[in-house]
């Protein structure tokens, strides 16, 4: 075994560890922000594996699309969804992995969450809301009650796949070094044989953007009578409390203008 092969094995170990540990941390940590960061680590590990497999264009695409684009979106979504942070840490017994991956999270001070009080008449599962309101600190776990079954199902899926891969008689592996200029080959394929898929993906992105904007704008339906006006709310700015300096917008521009005209 020469140095290059040893380096390859070492790099594989590092990247496989990063990707699997990142994925495990993503599912088990108690802070959603932290799980977004763990997911980023997992994506970086998979990008490293792509580069080891000589798919360098895909490795770059992975980092740019997933980490540059999607993770920003994920972290934006985390802002919406009331990140429990270390809230429940004080009162919960956790399995080893969860305790390990959420180590260092501190229980937050209790803050009054106006946005999360369920006074909406649309919400008719009152009992569940009352339950949530009663033990605010307890019921903010990020997991459903089916967590043990989910763990067993995930483990079973993993074991089944690993056994399938291991017990398959033998893959017809070719010892062939692919073209170094893979981006050129991929570009030719995308513009030639897979033209329709490429254009279809473009059309689908357009439709996705349109659908996302359509769903996310204010109001329920354009024809609905109780649809809100989609303009922003015009609100008077709050008065500054006891500001000694005169506000700038109280200066009468017209007077100033006339004064300057007189000087001329």
């Amino acid at each position, binding site marked *: 075994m020469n140095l290059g092969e040893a380096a390859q094995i070492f790099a594989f170990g590092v990247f496989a560890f990063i990707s699997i540990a990142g994925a495990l941390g993503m599912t088990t940590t108690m802070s*959603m922000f932290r799980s977004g960061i763990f997911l980023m680590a*997992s994506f970086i590990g998979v990008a490293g594996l792509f580069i080891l497999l000589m*798919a360098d264009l895909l490795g770059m695409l*992975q980092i740019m699309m997933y980490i540059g684009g999607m993770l920003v979106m994920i972290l934006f979504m985390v802002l919406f969804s009331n990140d429990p942070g270390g809230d429940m840490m004080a009162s919960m017994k956790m399995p080893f992995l969860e305790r390990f991956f959420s180590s260092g999270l501190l229980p937050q001070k209790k803050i009054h969450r106006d946005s999360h009080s369920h006074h909406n008449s649309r919400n008719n599962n009152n009992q*569940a809301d009352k339950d949530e309101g009663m033990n605010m600190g307890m019921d903010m776990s990020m997991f*459903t009650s089916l967590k043990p079954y989910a763990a067993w199902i995930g483990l079973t899926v993993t074991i089944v*796949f690993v056994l399938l*891969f291991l017990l398959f008689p033998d893959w017809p*592996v070719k010892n062939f070094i692919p073209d170094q200029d893979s981006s050129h080959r991929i570009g030719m394929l*995308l513009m030639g044989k897979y033209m329709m898929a490429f254009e279809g993906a473009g059309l689908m992105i357009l439709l996705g953007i349109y659908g996302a904007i359509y769903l996310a704008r204010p109001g329920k339906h354009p024809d609905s009578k109780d649809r809100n006006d989609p303009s922003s709310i015009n609100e008077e700015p709050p008065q500054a409390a006891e500001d000694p300096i005169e506000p700038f917008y109280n200066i009468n521009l017209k007077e100033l203008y006339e004064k300057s005209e007189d000087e001329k």
Partner: protein
Amino acid sequence: MILPINAYLIVSAVLFGIGVYAILAQRTAVMVLMGIELILNAVGLNIVVFWRYIQPENYSGQIFTIIIITIGAIEMSVGLAIMMLLYRNRKTVQVDKYQDLKG
């Protein structure tokens, strides 16, 4: 090709299993979407491994991974929009509170 193909396949199988666990066990919509991303990632890794080891002269495998990444981006943006709409209507982001489909 010092590494056997099974090493990479096991990594992708483990990623897939963790993604399944994340989808089933998490309560928040964002975490479910993260699990879906993880599964898409595992599938992409699997495709690239099979391209590299079985058919390295045919670059179609990488095209499929590119398409998968694109679909993942679209799914994420539409998921964000749906989640914002649901949050606006129901004032909660817990998936197990979404028990009816009426807006």
